[in-house]
């Protein structure tokens, strides 16, 4: 359902940005055309839609959108596969990154403190890669993504109990 909604929004944005494109080139279009008046009216109309779409884009992408989206994904013990509940979230992040290809994301993988440290770096990386693959599947360009694994070195919670471990097995999306 969530996924479907984002799909729709994506489609809408594609349509709107498609409409908006001529408006930015309206001067050229106007100069090359002999039908001045119709072009002007067409441009005006295009501007109107363009204005609307810009408002919409501002409301749901870039800063405000990124800020609204959850940026931490949690994992089960000894697992690096994504829980299905995160599909929509990752699609939404992918949607933003596709809409603005200047955005980059650093996927920071983490592990809980159990076991040896460098092996935990490996486990954190596996989790970061699971998120990376999902973003790639959603069309994000490889160049927009970097991964780093901090293993158990940067815990969210310092306790040595299951609730701390649960908070520490995670991937954080740092969007720039």
């Amino acid at each position, binding site marked *: 359902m969530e996924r479907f909604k984002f799909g729709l929004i994506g489609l809408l944005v594609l349509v709107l940005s498609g409409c908006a494109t001529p408006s930015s080139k309206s001067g050229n279009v106007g100069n090359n055309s002999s039908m001045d008046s119709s072009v002007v009216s067409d441009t005006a109309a295009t501007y109107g839609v363009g204005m609307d779409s810009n408002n919409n884009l501002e409301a749901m992408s870039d800063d405000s959108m990124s800020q609204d989206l959850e940026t931490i994904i949690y994992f089960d013990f000894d697992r690096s596969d994504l829980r299905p509940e995160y599909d929509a979230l990752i699609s939404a992040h992918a949607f933003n990154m596709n809409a603005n290809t200047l955005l980059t994301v650093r996927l920071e993988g983490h592990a809980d403190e159990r076991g040896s440290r460098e*092996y935990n770096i490996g486990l954190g990386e596996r989790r970061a*890669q699971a998120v990376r693959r999902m973003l790639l599947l959603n069309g994000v360009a490889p160049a927009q993504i970097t991964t780093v694994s901090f293993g158990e*070195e940067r815990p969210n919670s310092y306790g040595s109990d299951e609730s701390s471990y649960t908070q520490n097995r995670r991937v954080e999306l740092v969007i720039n």
Partner: protein
Amino acid sequence: MQLKKKIFLLFCLLFHDALYAELTIRITQGVGKQTPVAIVPFGLGRNVPKFAVSIADVITNDLKRSGRFSATPIENMLQKPTTGAEIDFDDWSILGVEAVVVGRIIKMKTGSFNIQFQLFDIFKGEQIVGYRMPAKEGTLRRSAHRIADMIYKELTGIRGVFDTKVAYVKTNVSRNETNYSLIVADSDGGNEQIVVTSNDPIMSPAWSPDSRQIAYVSFEGDASSIFLQTLRTGNRRKISDHPGINGSPAFSPDGRKLVLTLGGVNGNLDIYILDIATRSLKRMTYNRAIDTEATWSPNGDEIYFTSDRGGAPQVYKIALNSDKAERVTFQGNYNARPRLSPDGKKLAMVHLYRGDYRIAIHDIAKKDLLVLSSGMQDESPSFAPNSDTLIYATKMKGNGVLETVTADGLVRQRIASKLGDIREPVWSPFLKL
């Protein structure tokens, strides 16, 4: 018949234990015989000031800390000789002391100092060993550790490791900031010196065989890279900063190469060998699993590493001239971060034992496993250069502390705990004089 059955069962139990000899030694410190010794306060010759460091105290603490000696308290000494000629052997026999150390510090004409000491066998009434060594005020502590090493060697047959260093990582959390430091200290935890400090994680320190350099992983700039730092000057250079993971460095026995882990863009951790001079890389593993935490065999012919290619992490080894890895550990579901003893006979690792992560030793020849530690989150075992003792990190009230344990598991010691959380201890090689 009944008895026969019982004997058979007993035999099975014994045999089973032999196959799966996974013992946990709970007894700490002071098991077996502790040789009673006396370290008499060193005499100060003409014009020698009273130094802040007491040589006899440092030696006494070193020997006691080994768990193999007990020492006569100064107040119980019936005499305080500073040369062999002054020793009254009967006085020490009465106290049950088996060996006595006497010595003095002498000022030379040049203005420098000399430490002379003698070790005596009380039963035989003979000198076991006697030395004189030049000393400076700033290095008295080190001289004392060296004397303790000589005494230890004479009395146990094992080379002492009191005059060695330990590197470890320390974190201090204040408000939302975590500060990470790489520290080098004496093996008794004294004389802490900061090698590098950062607000980003530092991990996996590794000594060069000549003890002059340390390789470590740093996350400065939110990416991992491996640095090589010269201890004396503090100069460092970035030796590996490939995309993704750069981790787990370990020097080859000749000091020319580093074995390390690279993850690449796709995050597939594999083992590589980096030639430090030429920067050329040789890939050792091609597995899709996590391959990491590599270490060299003492002869430099093989690499031991952690891999979860079989599902759970286990220790594997691969010969340098081979592309086929061979599994080494089979007991338990988690064996990671192998480290070989310098004599090549034992493999220390992190071993999951009944739900707890413990330090265990795998005997290469016998292929059995001995659990040495008793914590829940023990990690990072590292052998002393004499192969007789290990250091590792454990937790006490949520804070990381260091412990040492003899390879036979009989003597376990906690290293003086300091402020902050400390982990990833690595024992230095023997230091050059």
